């Protein structure tokens, strides 16, 4: 009696197992798909962003192609910055980009090697315009704001 009930139960459960296994795989493949799609979509991140000018593979440290500037952003080598770049010529807290009344300002945070805007050193803070080139350490960023 037990055997008959069990084999019936088991035959019903096999459908459930196959369903669960395939749902699991669907979940994994979906996550991988989103992961790959996310790499492409990083290019379009808001209207204002920093674009890397250097060739990415010429740099020995990790740096992204694009950094979006949604809110106030700090750049530096230590972990509590928004944009972390492990360039030896960048200070722990190097620079800050602030948004105020639809205008973007860049401020140098007393960095050792300085921050340059269109190859001129910033003394305190400067207004950013579309197409400005920001040099931090050995990295050149293009400031882009699309309106």
């Amino acid at each position: 009696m037990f055997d008959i009930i069990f084999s019936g139960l088991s035959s019903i459960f096999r459908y459930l197992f196959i369903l669960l296994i395939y749902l699991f795989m669907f979940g994994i493949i979906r996550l991988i798909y989103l992961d790959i799609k996310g790499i492409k979509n990083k290019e379009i991140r808001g209207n204002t962003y920093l674009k890397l000018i250097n060739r990415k593979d010429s740099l020995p440290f990790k740096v992204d192609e694009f950094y979006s500037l949604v809110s106030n952003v700090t750049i530096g080598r230590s972990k509590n910055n928004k944009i972390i770049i492990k360039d030896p010529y960048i200070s722990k807290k190097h620079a800050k980009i602030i948004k105020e009344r639809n205008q973007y300002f860049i401020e140098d945070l007393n960095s050792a090697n300085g921050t340059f805007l269109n190859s001129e050193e910033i003394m305190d803070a400067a207004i950013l315009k579309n197409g400005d080139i920001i040099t931090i350490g050995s990295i050149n960023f293009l400031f882009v704001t699309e309106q």
Partner: protein
Amino acid sequence: MATRKVNFKRPQNFLFFLNLLSLSLVILYNKSFDRLSVGVVVGLTLTIYISNLLLLKISSGDHYLLQIVSMMMSLGIIMIYRINPELGFTQVIWYVIGIMTFYLTYFIIKKITFWPKCMKLYIGASFLLFLLTLIFGSTIKGATNWIQIRGHTFQPVEVIKILFVFFLASYYVNRNKFENKYILSIIVYLHIGFLFIQKDLGSAMLFYMVFIVIFYVYENDRKFILINIIAAILMAILGYFAFGHVQIRVEAWLNPWSDISGNGYQITQSLFAIAEGGFLGKGIGNGYPSFIPEVQTDFIFSAICEELGILTGIAVIMLFLILIYRGIKISLEQKNQFYRIVALGITLTLGFQTFIILGGVTKLIPLTGITLPFLSYGGSSLVMSFAALGILQVASEYIYSEQEENYEQGTKEDN
């Protein structure tokens, strides 16, 4: 709608339910409702779930590897538990040890940075293990590749697999220091020769395949690669005529039906089992997987096909495909040359091992005794597969080069 969203974001939820349901069913089948069995069901399900959550907190690298492997692992344990509850229980213990090895390897490999510098150590350790197997090895199931210590057996070849990948990686990282392709190939062929003496043909084939692919990717001398392939084909033909056990394997592959009660017994029973299962399988407990000799190790795939259907069998193959895809992607994205080659080597090892055994049990290629990674019963195979996965996990992260590290320490004082 909301629940659906949450579910798809976390595939481990499906895994959780699958484990809970199927293990309960297996317990029902074995009619063992004691505290131990219930403990295994609850404990295993929670261990798998928590270890996956823990990885999200610890590692910044790939989070899919462990999930995929947990799925394979669960299918293996369900099947082994159903075939033999005692072996199933041992397998659960090995799994827990395996997970611990995974995290331990992850931390050790990440902390220590001089891995590319000890090439000679890897070669020495491999040959030491080979010699130990030759001297103290005991013959189990036709192959002399086991070492017995106080009743516990383990297969040194599982450790040598990882040492071999490390050796190849450290050779190609330091290629400008001591590049000599002849010495390299002599060392590799010595590895394969030792495996041949132990009659472990599957591993010999695996080592050769991994070597030839890494050689193909990193060697500049194209003609030498071709010579290697031709020499291997010649050696395989020579081996066929020189060794009786190779001939038996090939004959059992070409026509197992002529000697159905003898040499062809295992492979024909495997084919019957796969055919019996059909698309949806017989259901757990309704088939006869124990008709196949060695069903819990080499022939676990046939047992899965019989009781859970060829759809699950295809799912197993697809899981391995996703795993290999992730491995290759990790290898492509890794900037550090050493970890790049290691990731490629480990992915190749897992991939070819799967191909050799799945091809064997479905009569696509001659059958050679080798375990299906993460699914088969066996302590050393499982633990070392998890160690390999731990190394792959490290390789999936961004690894700071030594120069950067030194600079970090040197400039701690500024501003």
